[in-house]
């Protein structure tokens, strides 16, 4: 199948015309670059499009309208916590005092941000029951790497070089095994128990002197609290290994369960999930990591320190030799962390607990609405999300979960996460969050129930969905087989004029 026409909207390259634009930057003196040796200079200017500002603005505004977003509708994407992003936080992050601050500004001139970061570390430590928190990791996955590298450093510091394995349950996020590989560990996948929880016996059998760490998501990716977590943590520690908690699902347990108190050694936070920082179409996030006493010496540098005089400063390079070092440049995704700080302050202790209470209540209510129409493989109280399955519908009608997801688009919803976790056949992971009204939950349930009816009555209608989206289903196979990843350089009238 070939590509015809220009699609929904021309690319920014097709819009460009030589001679458009300008007026942004004063012209430099003609001799500005004369002192740059010819060999180091660029011979051909980059083939960037030339546009004027109104065209650029219209292009991006029109493109934005092809997106579905939390601010346009219900986005129950399981595991991603697509809650409302408060506007105060966008305002705060753009305050010039925060936004214009260079990351290498001397500590004395950065006291406001340093205080904010210090207080955020303390709040996250309190929420997680951990001893201390680093704000450096740029995203949850980098937080995972930070945690696993600290665990590696811990074993090395004890002269224990035999531990080469990281255990993960088969319901884990893909980032867990990918992180273990990046840190040089072999991943051992442990099957889940029939009730969806960790299989304690299987874990005990897999644990041993070669186990460096166990990575657990709690509540699990099925949205279920790991009730056997106490016994599992004991087994992990008895084996000399450490326990990592993937904090992706923290939105379910604020004020109810503190991983550090329960015995986890390390965990990461996804502030773009639990603490409402925007998902940004794929990022940025931030992935703070909390540690217990055991891993405290290994935290990345620099930490934010409070001095005796009440001032704040960043740790100096090499000040704490036991540190695993840096994971990235500078202190962290501070602009994201300002938003998380504002969110935590706005809620306080009581508000955060209510967040989880309402998120869990909404998920259980929605689950109860769908039971009877969809399979609910693990029908007990869920936490902030749950898995429904279209396995029975598929058997009866041939309509798959993918089709139902696409049909939801016609009803005006973003589909849930589908085919994850991998252990549920035809699964859809539904996470409503606490910021959706009961009317929205009911309307969404009505839509899913109506689609189940369509699957039986008019299956092709569902299989060919979406019908009302900007485009129909895409040819992903050709895209992967003959990748076109770049607009070809412009020629003729589209080429930029020489300087």
């Amino acid at each position: 199948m070939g590509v015809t026409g220009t699609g929904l909207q021309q690319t920014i390259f097709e819009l460009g015309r030589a001679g458009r634009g300008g007026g942004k930057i004063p012209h430099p003196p003609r001799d500005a670059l004369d002192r740059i040796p010819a060999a180091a200079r660029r011979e051909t200017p980059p083939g960037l499009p030339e546009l004027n500002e109104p065209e650029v603005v219209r292009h991006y505004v029109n493109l934005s309208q092809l997106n579905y977003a939390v601010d346009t509708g219900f986005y129950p994407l399981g595991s991603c916590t697509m809650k409302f992003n408060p506007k105060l936080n966008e305002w705060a992050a753009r305050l010039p005092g925060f936004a214009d601050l260079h990351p290498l500004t001397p500590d004395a001139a950065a006291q406001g941000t340093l205080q904010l970061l210090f207080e955020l570390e303390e709040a996250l430590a309190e929420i997680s029951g951990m001893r201390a928190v680093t704000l450096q990791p740029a995203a949850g996955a980098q937080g995972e790497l930070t945690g696993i590298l600290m665990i590696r450093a811990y074993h090395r510091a004890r002269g224990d070089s035999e531990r080469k394995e990281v255990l993960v349950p088969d319901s884990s996020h893909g980032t867990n095994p990918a992180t273990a590989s990046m840190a040089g560990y072999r991943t051992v996948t442990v099957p889940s128990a029939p009730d969806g929880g960790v299989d304690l016996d299987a874990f005990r059998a897999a644990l041993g002197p070669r186990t460096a760490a166990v990575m657990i998501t709690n509540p699990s990716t099925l949205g279920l609290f790991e009730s056997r977590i106490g016994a599992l943590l004991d087994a992990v520690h008895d084996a000399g290994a450490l326990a990592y908690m993937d904090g992706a699902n923290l939105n379910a347990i604020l004020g109810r369960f503190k991983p550090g108190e329960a015995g986890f050694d390390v965990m990461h936070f996804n502030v773009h999930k639990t603490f409402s920082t925007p998902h940004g179409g794929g990022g940025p996030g931030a992935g703070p990591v909390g540690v217990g006493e055991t891993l405290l010496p290994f935290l990345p540098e620099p930490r934010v320190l409070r001095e005796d005089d009440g001032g704040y400063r960043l740790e100096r390079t090499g000040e704490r030799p036991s540190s695993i070092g840096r994971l990235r440049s500078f202190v962290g995704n501070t602009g994201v962390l300002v938003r998380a700080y504002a969110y935590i302050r706005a809620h306080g202790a009581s508000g955060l607990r209510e967040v989880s209470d309402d998120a869990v209540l909404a998920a259980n209510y929605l689950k109860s609405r769908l039971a009877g129409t969809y399979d609910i493989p693990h029908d007990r109280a869920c936490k902030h999300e749950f898995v429904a399955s279209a396995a029975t519908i598929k058997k009866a009608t041939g309509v798959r979960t993918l089709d139902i997801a696409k049909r939801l688009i016609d009803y005006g919803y973003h589909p849930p996460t589908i085919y994850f976790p991998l252990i549920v056949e035809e699964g859809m992971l539904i996470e409503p969050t606490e910021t959706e009204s009961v009317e929205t939950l009911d309307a969404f349930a009505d839509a899913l129930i109506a689609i189940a009816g369509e699957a039986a009555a008019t299956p092709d209608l569902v299989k060919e969905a979406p019908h009302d989206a900007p485009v129909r289903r895409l040819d992903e196979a050709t895209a992967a087989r003959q990748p076109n990843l770049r607009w070809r350089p412009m020629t003729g009238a589209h080429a930029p004029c020489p300087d």
Partner: protein
Amino acid sequence: MPYGPHTAADRARMLGALGLTSVDQLFEDIPEALRASPLDLPDPEPELELAARLSDLAGRNRTGLASFLGAGVYRHWSPPAVDQILLRSEWYTAYTPYQPEISQGTLQSIYEYESLIAELVDLDVVSASHYDGAAATAEAALMTCRATRRDRVLVSRGVHPHYRETLRTYFGGDLELDEVPLVVDGDAAGTTDLVALDRLLADPNRPVAGVIAAQPDFLGLLEPMPAIGELAHAAGALFVAVVEPVSLAVLAPPGTYGADIAAGEGQPLGIAPQYGGPYLGILASRDALVRQIPGRLVGMTADLDGRRAFVMTMRAREQDIRRDKAASNICTNQALLALAASIYLATIGPHGLRDVAALGAARATELEAALAANGAPRIHPGPYLNEFAVRVPNARSVHRRLVDRGVLAGLVLADVEPDDPTLEDGLLVCATEVTTPAEIVRFAEALSGVLGGRPPTAVEAGAGTERGRRAAAGAVR
């Protein structure tokens, strides 16, 4: 809860539907012994008070200093169109475009980002995107190991110290990392020592996967990139160029001097400094390495009707598909910052970008002359673009006293390179298109005052604070 919609009646209705009387019943699966102690956090803060708290904290940062600080993060003019488009919540409240039918905005913008950066770096494959320049450089280094099946990487000491520290963290396992020293004196002082590089590449028992060098280097100097690339390739290694994107408007792009991979910090493309992030990790490669590049790729394809559309592709490299065999664990990336960079490039245009780079170079020339005339000559003789190192006696103390006079005199090099005697008493300073001639004069006068023992004037003493700006404005009147 400030953003929750539920009334007491709503909660009662939901609980009733579940046959429950209290939400506590939904948490009974948490074993009693493991239930949390009460959260010890302040009370909820109403928006009005919270806004005042945040303003107060922001106001305690001194962002009004005349700043000559770069060192990897640069002040630039970002047309207001950039941030105003970013504030459309169709961009920032969406997530990864897993459902392409309702994500064509994000997908097309990513394809355009890939294409725009490809033009800048002159390489065909652009990943969208990585956390920052340091993480992108570390991913580039890991790519060279996967592609060559070798496990040793050489990094020039001319690469940003934070990037080198990040590389050391990422390479702490079975992979080896060696640093290539810089030339100590002579015309090439401060750039990669090619003789030492050749020697490090020659060890037959320790074959090298990749060589990493930066253009401009951390000290602002222009590196002999073609020569570094040739040495790397002669030893069967890949060549990674760490680049600054604005400079690519005027400096030779990596694709023309043989780089296999380009990595860099995208912050200069319209993104605010924000005390460290979020920024944008640029990572690009030659076509041949497309299956080794980590991070999202968006490609052009067609829908069932043959209409042009865009989709995430070559997903078999990614963690949610390949798990422990993935090219990286990266999941959330920096999509919104990639969008910012695209809007910036589209708004500023090819000629504007050249003007940004050239005006920065012109201001830097003025800065060099002003500092040299007031007791702070350059350390290195070689060519630079818009950033360079100067030497002053007691640099750390001078730097601190200049802050008191409202001038942020770049970076104290000993803070980041404490073990390099050639950088003792060095300050790394930069100019960009937003640096004004008046700021350069102010820097020079303050420097002369500090070195000459003159006490700060009233204007200097208050500079960089709100009160100081008002005082300065009053003084002018």
